Structure formats: C-alpha cells, structure tokens
C-alpha cells in the first residue's frame, strides 16, 4: 500500500508541470472569454439601443436577457475543455509508453521495484483519475468566478438570474456533471473501466509486440462486447428484461470486465512483459 502511494505521488509529480500549464490555459481562456463575451454583448446592446432609441425594457422584450449559458456555450469556454480531454486521452497512452521510449529505460526501474508490479498499474490508473477529477473540480471552482466577471460587466437588468446549475445547458456538460451523485459515480466508474481496459490493451501490445496490437484490439472489443452483453441480450429477447434487471446485469458485467482487465494486466506484468 505504501509503495502504491509513493508510485502514485511519483506519477503525479511527473505530469504536474504540464498539468499546471493545462490549468493555466483553461483559466486564461475562460476568463478572457467571460470578458470578451460580456463586453461583446454590451457593445451590441448599446449600439441597438442607441440606433433605434429603445428603452431597456423594450430591448429586453425584443432581444431577451443575457443568460450565462451564452458564455458557457461560447468557444472560449468549450475549447479548453475539449483540449484538456484530448490531452488526457493522449496521456492515457503516453503515461505507459514514455517509460519504454525516450532517452531512458525507466520501465526497467519500475519493473525491478520490490513491489507487486500490479501496483504500477494501479498507480498509473489512479493518476489518470486524479488528473481527470482535478479538471472537473477546477471547472466547478471557476464557474462562480466567471459569474462574478460577467456580472461585473453586464448590469443586472440585462441578464437573467444565474442561480440554477449551469451544467445542463451543453450536452457534453450534462455528461461530465450529472445532477445526481449516483450518476456521477456511474459515469466516472465507466470512465475508470475504459481506462483500465485501455491500460491492459497497452500492456498486451507491450508484451506481444506486433501481433500484440491485434490481440489488444480483440481484447478491447471483447471487453466492450461483454460490457454491453446485457443490452444485446435484452434486444434479442425483445425486451424480456426490466430496466433495473438490465442495470444489475450491466453492473455485474462491468465488474467482470474490470476484474479481468486487472487480472490480465497482473499476469502480463508478472510473466509476459518485455522491455
């Protein structure tokens, strides 16, 4: 357990500098966006009001209030999120391959540590989850600040009230920030399983070289197949099962998929891995 924590901390440290730049990028882009979008809105309203001499209430009746969702939907807000997701997806692979390639052979050191080699797998898996949840947390913390920025630029009578949760405006955000905690656990649980399966696929490739890629793909599809088997089963038995039963079966399947991913990874790291 102690080795797991040390390895976890070590992996986090390795990515920390890049992580800080990512966080910096998100903050800068979203803050600038908040200013730009709000200022842009105000300029437009001033022009329209002056041009056709409208009163504020007439303008509002005609063009409606500024809602925070207009900022959330803007590219300033969305692009850094997409960029971070892409970066993390790449790092899911890079977190392993960097140990093999590059000037050094750090994988030797990792595999020669006096600890179960599966600890390396768990440490890297937890690192990815920490990085993902870290950005999820960042966004939750940034929203109130961005609201302050917007409210400082757009006077109250031009904007709707910003109280309700802002994560249900964009399809993508509804997935990243479900409104029930149980849904949060399920979604990020599936995310964890996806990363675990990807890790095992990487280890398969690392253990069997060229034909390893083929094995890895087959393994990935197999895991996906097993995971959605209950849904297929239900379709072929034309809806024989109730939603709750399907859900329970999916739960069992996901535990099987996760369990097998870990078991295979453990077996590979112990007996089949090649440096």
């Amino acid at each position, binding site marked *: 357990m102690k080795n797991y924590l*040390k390895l976890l901390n070590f992996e986090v440290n390795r990515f920390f500098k890049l992580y800080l730049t990512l966080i910096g990028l998100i903050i800068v882009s979203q803050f600038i966006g908040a200013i730009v979008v709000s200022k842009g809105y105000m300029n437009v309203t001033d022009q329209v009001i002056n041009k056709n001499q409208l009163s504020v209430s007439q303008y509002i009746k005609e063009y409606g209030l500024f809602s925070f969702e207009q900022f959330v939907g803007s590219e300033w807000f969305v692009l850094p999120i997409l960029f971070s997701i892409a970066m993390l997806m790449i790092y899911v692979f890079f977190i392993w391959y960097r140990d093999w390639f590059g000037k050094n*052979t*750090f994988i030797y050191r990792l595999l020669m*540590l*006096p600890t*179960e080699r599966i600890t390396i797998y768990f440490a890297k898996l937890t690192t990815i989850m920490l990085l993902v949840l870290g950005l999820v947390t960042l966004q939750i913390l940034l929203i109130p600040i961005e609201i302050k920025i917007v409210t400082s630029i757009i006077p109250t009578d031009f904007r709707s009230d910003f109280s309700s949760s802002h994560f249900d405006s964009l399809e993508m955000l509804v997935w990243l920030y479900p409104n029930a905690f149980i849904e949060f656990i399920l979604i990020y649980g599936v995310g964890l399983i996806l990363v675990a399966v990807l890790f095992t696929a990487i280890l398969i490739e690392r253990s069997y*070289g060229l034909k390893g890629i083929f094995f890895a793909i087959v393994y990935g599809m197999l895991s996906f197949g097993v995971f959605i088997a209950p849904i297929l089963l239900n379709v072929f038995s034309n809806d024989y099962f109730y939603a709750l039963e399907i859900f329970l079966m999916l739960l069992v399947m996901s535990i099987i998929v996760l369990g097998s991913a870990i078991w295979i990874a453990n077996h590979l790291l*112990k007996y089949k891995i090649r*440096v």
Partner: protein
Amino acid sequence: MIEVKNVEKKYGRKRVLKGLSFTAEKGEITCLIGINGVGKTTIMKAIMALTPINSGEILIDGKKIRKESFEKVTFIPDTITMLPQMKICDAFSFMADFYKNWDPQRAEELLQFFKLDPTERIANLSKGNMAKVNMILGLALNVDYLLMDEPFSGIDIFSREQIAEVFTSHLIEDRGVIITTHEISDIEHLIDRAVLIDNGEVLKEFSVEEVREKEGKSVVDVMREVYRG
C-alpha cells in the same frame, strides 16, 4: 546461487536462447562472454523477469523470482534506469524511497570516489559519468547478486579504470556478480568463472583460475579453441 536451467526463448520465430544453462555462485564474479547478439543481455533480462522465457527455469537461491527478490538481486543495464530530468540526488532519494536495503552512505562514498556532483542533472552527464551513476544505483543496494550488462563498453578509459577498481573493492566481496562483455581482455584477471556463449547456447563454462592452473591457458586461449574448434 543463480541457476539458469535450459532456458528457451523465441522472438517471433527466431530462437534466441536454445536450452541455455549455467550457474552463478554467490561470492563469485561470473562473466558471460560472447559476441554481440548471442543473447547475453536477453539472459540477464530473463533472470530479472524483464522478458518472458518460453521454457526452462531460472531460480535465485532455489526460488522463482518474486517481488522480494528485487531486494536481493539488482540489474544494471547498459542505459541508465532513471529519468533524465532527475538530479542524481533525486535518483538516490527515489531508490531510498522504494528499496529497504538502499545504503545512502555507500552511495555517498561512491559519488566521492567517482568525483560526481549530486546536484548534477542526469541528462547533462557524460556517457561515462552516466554509466557510473547507473553503477551506483546497483552497487549502493545491499543485494546478494549484481547483474551488470557491458559495464565497460563504450566509455572513456579513465571511467573504465575507475569502474574496474570497484570490482576489486569490498563492494563486490562475497556478492554474486554476473557481468557480460564481448571483449574479455581488460577484465580477465578480475573474474572467477567464465561462461562462453554463442548464438543462444553455452559452449563452455569453466573456472578461470582452474584452467590457468591445470591447462595454463588464459580465457582468451580457451575462447580461441572453443569458437574456432
């Protein structure tokens, strides 16, 4: 002792190790000798379970390798096993963090012996110095067995001499050492046992002093016989 018992290994269809067997005693320096590509490095990786073997068995003190073994055996490959952006002192604290029998004093001693600055970044070290730091990562561990892959190849003459001195020091005494090399000349009188290897097979395994005593032959003479014969 480390026993390698008829180990078979294939890379795809190419048979790299063909039923290879030898033993390395604790307290002796065993040298695997063979030209490049005969599978010397592969054997070492196999011993450390860094590469799988198709059949055969490798025992360390009678047991298969498991996580505790890594406190008793260490492997110094021909490239450094630390991150380039690490300082030498970071590398040492990493080792101290994970290995119970990492000996900081000995590491310090070796650093002074090799005249290296602990705050230096690994990336900026010369090839020779990098080899020395890599060496310290193994030597400063209180292990029973030390596997070194081509410790002398491709580094400057002065570093080579410094490293050779290590072999005559207390650091090696009563530890099992396996080193690999493809030119035996400069370390012939350092080793206890020689294992001549050619494309994945052991041609001859002998005690160097015995051969000198009985047949008055140097290792190079034996090699000439065996490889040409």
